[in-house]
C-alpha cells in the first residue's frame, strides 16, 4: 500500500514575527523555519504503519519555495521513502483550493491508498488542504484524527476529536484522506543513520508546466481567497505589566493575588 503525507514548512514559533511593509503578511527575512508540528504527527502515523508492515511506501509532498526542500529532507531523514517538491514562483500566494488542485495533479497516477496531512498549518491555521484534496479526488476524508487503525486492505477506522473529551469513530473506504491532530502519537526524530540515508533518497521537483497547469488558474495572481491585511490583535483590556527584579515582582504578585483573590 502506498501512502502520502502532505507537509508544509512554517515559521518556527519562537521566530521574531513582524508585519511586512504592506501589512499583508509577515516579514520573512528574519524568520527561522521548520516542519509544521501537526505534519510531524501525520508523518509518524504513516511511519508506524510502515513499521507494522501495513504500508509499503511513505512519500512526502510539499508545495513551496526553494527553502521548503528542508522539510522534505527532514521527512526523508525521519523515514519517508521519497519526496515530491512542487515548486513554482507563480504559486506564491495561491489559495487553498488552487493548492489542492496542484497537489491532485502532482500525485496523479501514483495510486496512494492513504493520504495524510496535519489538521492545520501553524502559519495560516486554515485547515483546508486535506479535505479539499479529498473532495477533488472524490474520496472520503476525516479530520482531527486522534486514533487510526487499518482494519484490512480496504478500510481505515478513524477516531476524530470532538469537543468535551469525546471521539467520533468513522470507517473510511480506501483510498482516503485523513488529517491528524497533535498528540495522536509520539513523533520520532531523525537518527544520524536516517540523515545519512536520506542523502540517497529522491526529491522530485515539479513545476506547474510539468503538471499541465496554468498559473492563470492556480497561481497566486488568480487567488480568490486573498489577505487584505494582517495586524496585531487588539490588546483588549490588557494586563498590568509588572517590572523590576524577580523577587520584587514576586512580592508584588503576592500582594495582588492576596488583594484580588484572597487565596493567600
Amino acid at each position, binding site marked *: 500500500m502506498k501512502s502520502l503525507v502532505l507537509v508544509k514548512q512554517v*515559521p518556527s514559533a519562537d521566530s521574531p*514575527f513582524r508585519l511586512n511593509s504592506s501589512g499583508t503578511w*509577515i516579514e520573512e527575512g528574519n524568520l527561522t523555519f521548520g516542519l509544521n508540528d501537526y505534519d510531524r504527527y501525520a508523518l509518524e502515523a504513516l511511519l508506524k504503519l510502515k513499521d507494522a508492515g501495513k504500508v509499503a511506501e511513505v512519500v512526502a509532498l510539499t508545495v513551496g519555495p526553494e527553502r521548503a526542500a528542508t522539510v522534505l529532507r527532514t521527512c526523508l531523514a525521519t523515514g519517508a521513502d521519497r519526496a515530491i517538491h512542487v515548486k513554482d514562483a507563480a504559486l506564491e500566494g495561491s489559495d*487553498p*483550493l488552487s493548492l489542492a488542485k496542484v497537489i491532485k495533479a502532482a500525485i496523479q497516477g501514483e495510486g496512494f491508498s492513504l493520504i495524510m496531512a496535519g489538521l492545520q498549518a501553524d*502559519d*495560516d*491555521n*486554515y*485547515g*483546508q488542504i*486535506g*479535505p479539499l*484534496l479529498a*473532495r*477533488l479526488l472524490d*474520496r*472520503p476524508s476525516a*479530520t*482531527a484524527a*486522534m486514533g487510526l487503525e487499518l482494519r484490512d486492505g480496504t478500510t481505515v*477506522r478513524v*477516531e*476524530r*476529536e*470532538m*469537543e468535551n*473529551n*469525546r*471521539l*467520533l*469513530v*468513522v470507517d*473510511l473506504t480506501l483510498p482516503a484522506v485523513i488529517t491528524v491532530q*497533535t*498528540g495522536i502519537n509520539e513523533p520520532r526524530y531523525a537518527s544520524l543513520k536516517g540523515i545519512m540515508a536520506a542523502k540517497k533518497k529522491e526529491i522530485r521537483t515539479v513545476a506547474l508546466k510539468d503538471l499541465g497547469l496554468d498559473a492563470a488558474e492556480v497561481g497566486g495572481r488568480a487567488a*480568490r*481567497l*486573498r489577505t*487584505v491585511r*494582517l495586524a496585531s*490583535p*487588539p*490588546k483588549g483590556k490588557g*494586563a498590568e*505589566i*509588572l*517590572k523590576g527584579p*524577580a*523577587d520584587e515582582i*514576586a*512580592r508584588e*504578585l*503576592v500582594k*495582588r*493575588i492576596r488583594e*484580588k*483573590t484572597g*487565596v*493567600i
Partner: protein
Amino acid sequence: MPCKVLVLAEHEGGAVAGITYELLGMAHRVAGEMGWAPAEIKALLIGSGIAGAAAEIAARGAAEVIVAEGPAVQGYTGDAWHRVVEAVAKSESPEMVLFGHTPNGWDVAPLVAAGLGVPLATECSAIARESGAFRFSRKAFNGKFVQVIDLGTARPLLATMQKGAAPAFSAATRGRVRPVPAGVGEADLRARFVEIKKGQAGAVDLTQAAIIVSGGRGLGGADKFAVIRDLAQALGGQVGASRPVTDMGWLPHEHQVGSSGVTVSPKLYIACGISGAIQHIVGMRGSGYIVAINKDAEAPIFGVADVGVVGDLFEIVPALTKAVKEAKG
C-alpha cells in the same frame, strides 16, 4: 422565498447545539446590514430524530428550516453531509453559507468548498462590509495576528465561524419546516459512522480547582515541570497545562485546559510559558484572576491576563514560590 444566508445547524442527538443560534445571530446581523429580508435566512438541519430540533430552530431565527433526514445521514460523516449541503446550496443559491468552526463544521466546509468550486474562510470571528465587499476577520499564526480575508466575487461565500463570533439569536420567529430528501443512499457512501465515545478519563479534575498553575510549551520538557508543581503546591492549587504539554506526554491529558481539554474557572489562574492561543483561552478566561508569565511581551495571553510579567519563567516562578511561602509564613 429565495435564500440569502444558509446556516448549517448542528445538533447532538436531536438537541440543538448553541453554535446554531450564534450562526443565526450572525446571519441576521449580515442581513440587517445588507437590507436582506429576515425571510431569506434559512437553516439546514441534517440527521435523524430531529423534528423537535427543526421546530426549535424555526422558532428562533430561521425563516425556513430545511430538514434532510434519513438512514444515510443518521450519524455525522463528511461524505454524507457534504452531499446534502452541496445539493441544498445549489438549489437555494444563497449569497453566503455559514458553518460553525466546530469539529464537524470545519470537517465538512472544505468538502463543500471544493465541491462548489468556491473559496472558504475558516475560523472567522467577524464579517464586515468594507469597500463594497464582505471581509472575514480571523486569527492567524496561532493568535499572533488578526487576518482580514476577501473571498472575491464567487458565490456562495463560505465561512466557518468561531464560537462567540455573534451573540446567539434570541428573538422569536415563526419559520417553517421543510423536509427535503437527503438524496444520499447508504450504498453511495465511502464513510460509515460507527459511534461517538468518551475519551480517556483521568484521575485529576481541574474543573473544581480554586487555584491552577499552568505550564506551556515554554517549560521545554517534562523534567522542568518541577517549578510549576512547586508553585502549585505552595499555593495549595492544581497543575494545569496547554495542549502541547499533554501531547508530548509531559503531563497526562486530564491536565489540559482549553477547547479540547477542560474548561476551568478557578479564583486564580497562573499561566507560565503559554502563548495564549484561542483554544487555550476559551478554557480559562472565566477564571477570577489571571496572572501571565511569558518572555514574549507580544504574547496574546497578556490580552486576557489581569497582571503579567514579561520575563523568564525559570526566574519568576521560583521567586514567586518563595514569596508565597514567606507570605504564608
